[in-house]
């Protein structure tokens, strides 16, 4: 797992959203979220306004971290898929490309089998995009170009707290 800073650019953001929008339709699910393993929400599609997305992201990451800890204790690398079954809604949580978490919320209009199948395909596509994204941000950091915070002043920072 890379420990480097996560950076998201417009181009990849659009590509990611195309993939998860399609997954939302193909899997007949209600909401899909992508969350960084550190608990930051990357993107969400579907009925996102019905949910507290920030909390959801943080708890999902906590959940993945805790089950990852359990996995290591029994000698597994990680549990790459988690499934939570509720009375009406279910959560399918999976790890994409080692560092991003894909959360699919669905009800009885879909099924676990369908979600698993569609998630598998979408995960492969997402992995490729995130791989590209990591390379891109590493290159930008190396070349030192266009870092938006290089020019912030002490005043800018102080103003936040005024």
């Amino acid at each position, binding site marked *: 797992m890379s420990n480097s*800073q996560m950076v998201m650019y417009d181009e990849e953001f659009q590509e990611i959203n195309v993939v998860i929008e399609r997954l939302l339709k193909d899997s007949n699910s209600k909401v899909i979220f992508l969350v960084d*393993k550190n608990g930051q929400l990357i993107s969400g599609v579907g009925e996102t306004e019905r949910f507290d997305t920030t909390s959801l992201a*943080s708890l999902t990451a906590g959940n993945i971290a805790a089950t990852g800890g359990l996995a290591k204790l029994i000698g597994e690398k990680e549990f790459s898929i988690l499934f939570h079954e509720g009375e009406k809604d279910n959560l399918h949580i999976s790890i994409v490309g080692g560092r991003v978490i894909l959360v699919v919320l669905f009800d009885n209009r879909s099924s676990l089998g369908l979600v698993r199948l569609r998630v598998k395909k979408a995960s492969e596509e997402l992995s490729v995009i995130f791989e590209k994204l990591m390379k891109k941000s590493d290159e930008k950091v190396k070349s030192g170009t266009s870092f938006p915070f290089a020019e912030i002043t002490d005043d800018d920072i102080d103003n936040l707290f005024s």
Partner: protein
Amino acid sequence: MSFINYASREINCKIVYYGPGLCGKTTNLQHVYAKTAPEAKGKMISLATETERTLFFDFLPLALGEIRGFKTRFHLYTVPGQVFYDASRKLILKGVDGIVYVADSQEERMDANIESLDNLRHNLKEQGYDLDKLPYVVQYNKRDLPNAVPVEELRRELNPTNVPDFEACASTGEGVFETLKAVAKLILVDLKKGR
């Protein structure tokens, strides 16, 4: 590590409150939550036991405003302070951008303070971080209690590297925002350097 999103023009940073059991980490977050305008905060989540001891973490998202057109968000986490929750503490340190170490000023908690600080260094190291290179501040909490150790002594024991430190009484809110501002500022200065 902070997350910069050019698409939504947001920057997200993670601050972790660390310290021995019952030192006031959750109380710090509760005060921040109580005194922050509704539009600047999200829901505070506490994963606690029935006796209100932190089991996994507390979480409070804050939106501070904009810097150069980027929405600046801080995610505040606490760790469970009790010694036997070490596995959980390690998980919460993942991706941290800044640390607030909360010390309990009471004389009888001095050993617990030292143990917790060693534990912080050790757990950070395990994840490939060095406390001396991270944005880091110290808070001496519970200054209002009669058995509080003098600040000079706490400083000598708990802040040998002389990072910014603050006296506080989290239950009344004294020193809470000063501490938070200091660590947030260090994180932004760190970002400015581009790491």
